[in-house]
């Protein structure tokens, strides 16, 4: 059997990749995808711990995370469309209307 910490380390790596691409990527859609990656890393952690503790609570939590992520995606994509309509670009670096 695969030890539990393999999953935890994998989840941590995924989470870090998510943080990294959130900071590095320049397209808003990709930045948004990296947040989804982070959420899925959290889901993996929950499932792994749920298995380790033999406790179904962690898996229930995952369902809620997925539902909320879907709601967030709906709102997020709507905001991204609104941005594209006003600015005709999805580059994060051009989102600099507000400077002092």
């Amino acid at each position, binding site marked *: 059997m695969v030890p539990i910490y393999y999953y*935890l380390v994998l989840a941590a790596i995924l*989470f870090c990749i*998510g943080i990294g691409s*959130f900071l590095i990527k320049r397209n*808003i859609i990709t*930045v*948004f995808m990296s*947040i989804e990656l*982070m*959420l899925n*890393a*959290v889901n993996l*952690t*929950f499932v792994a*711990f*749920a298995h*380790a*503790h033999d*406790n179904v*609570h*962690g898996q*229930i*939590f995952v369902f*809620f*995370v997925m539902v*909320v992520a879907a*709601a*967030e995606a709906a*709102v*997020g994509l*709507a*905001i*991204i469309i*609104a*941005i594209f309509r*006003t*600015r005709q670009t999805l580059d994060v670096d051009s*989102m*600099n*209307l*507000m*400077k*002092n």
Partner: protein
Amino acid sequence: MPTTLSNNVLALLPEYILTIVGVLIMLGEPLLPAGRTRKPLGWLAILGAIAATGVSFWQLHLGVMNAFSDSIRVDAYSIFFQVVIGAVVVISLLASLDYFEGNSSHAGEYYALVCFGAVGMMLMSCSTELLMVFIGLEISSISTYIMAGFRKGQGTATESSLKYFLLGSFATAFFLYGIALTFGATGSTNINVVAAALPHTNSPVLAVLAIAMIIIGIGFKVSAAPFHVWTPDVYQGAPPPVVGLMSTAPKAAAFAVLLRILYSGYAIDQPRWQILMAILSVLSMCIGNFGALMQRDVKRMLAYSSIAHAGYLIAAFTALPADGIAAAAFYSASYAAMNVGAFIVITLVSGYSERVRTGDDYTGLAQEHPVLGAAFSFFLLSMIGIPFTAGFFGKFYVFTAVMHSGHVKLALIGLVNSGIGCYYYLRLITRIYSTANATKSSSSADFELAAETDPALIAAPLNFPMPAVSLRIPAYVALAAAALATLALGIAPNGVLRMAQSAAIATTPANAANQITPISPSSTLR
């Protein structure tokens, strides 16, 4: 008290009322013809929010209620924050009643979103189950993301909404990871079970990581430095009544969650997280105040000031449980009163298109509109912490609590920072009361950039746009309520402070006072 159906209904009655009102507004909005005013929906939302606040206050007489298998706990603590949130929502709704009227075709959705957001915030303050906290946090966050971008045509507003959304979801991921690690360390996500299981955990490292992740996640939400980068842009671009709401109510809810998680869930690790909170507090105070010194845009300046205020509030986390929670609760109430008031003035002064933006634009405000000028100055004085205002007692209680636990250096840094803060608040007040009207120049860089995406902005006249007197009455009522609350908290703070203290006692574990020994001041700040 056993968990029964009636108990479940009673415990979440304010949330139910707001949800039903929100759904009714969503149903009513498409039924109204396109050109018709949306004000009836706004009044419905106001009535719903008043009812929810009233019911929440009434719950105080029902004693402690545990509902939904111990995932909800309605006690003096949750009620304190719910009443603050409810009051902020009522005042912001009154102020925004005429703001979206005639300017956007979908004003009804705004009222529904405010109601749903309030549901999320109220859920946050009364949940003892991290799953419920997460859901409440998301309900409130998703509604505020949309509200921030409600002026769809304006580039700055959508950009503010995007930044809020991206960084808010980023923070949520951290918060969730913290919950996952908590679950890993203790096998539960219920705060009380976590507190009981922590002393026997096999993996204390996970618990420490979990605290750090949760503090990062909530730190983003309350705009504490170094997680504050989104705040200035979001506050600058979002419509002012929305900023008034989202800089106070969700913050109060997030602090309620953080206080509960740290003081009752992670009470055993207090020395560890206290150091983190002290660092966060010092950074927020310094970055907030020094950042605000350099701002020309008034909303941006208030955004930095809100970072600084988050810093003062976080200082209370280094105090002993009972003192710290009471001081933090009182501070969040007083900050809510003065900040909502300040943003109502900005709403009235700058209007929908927001031609009036920089500090220079506010020159001579008191001459043209004496009431607004006086009110704005009063709220700014309260933010400085002048006696007879809410801000004074807020700071007084926080720094007293911090001194009591022996963190003299932290209190001193806070006091020095309050002094620095005087400069930019007073600078704005002198502008409001100066008479030289000729210095008005709205040609700041951000204005030109904003005008590129919204040509209507150039056409807007460069004076204080004021709607007809009859249309201003609800906003003035809201302004009077905020000013009265700020004054009342500054003259007679005892009633609210007693509520805050009973709130603190309600959420502190009974044995916490014996368990925790104050850490020495030298270990907090080196």
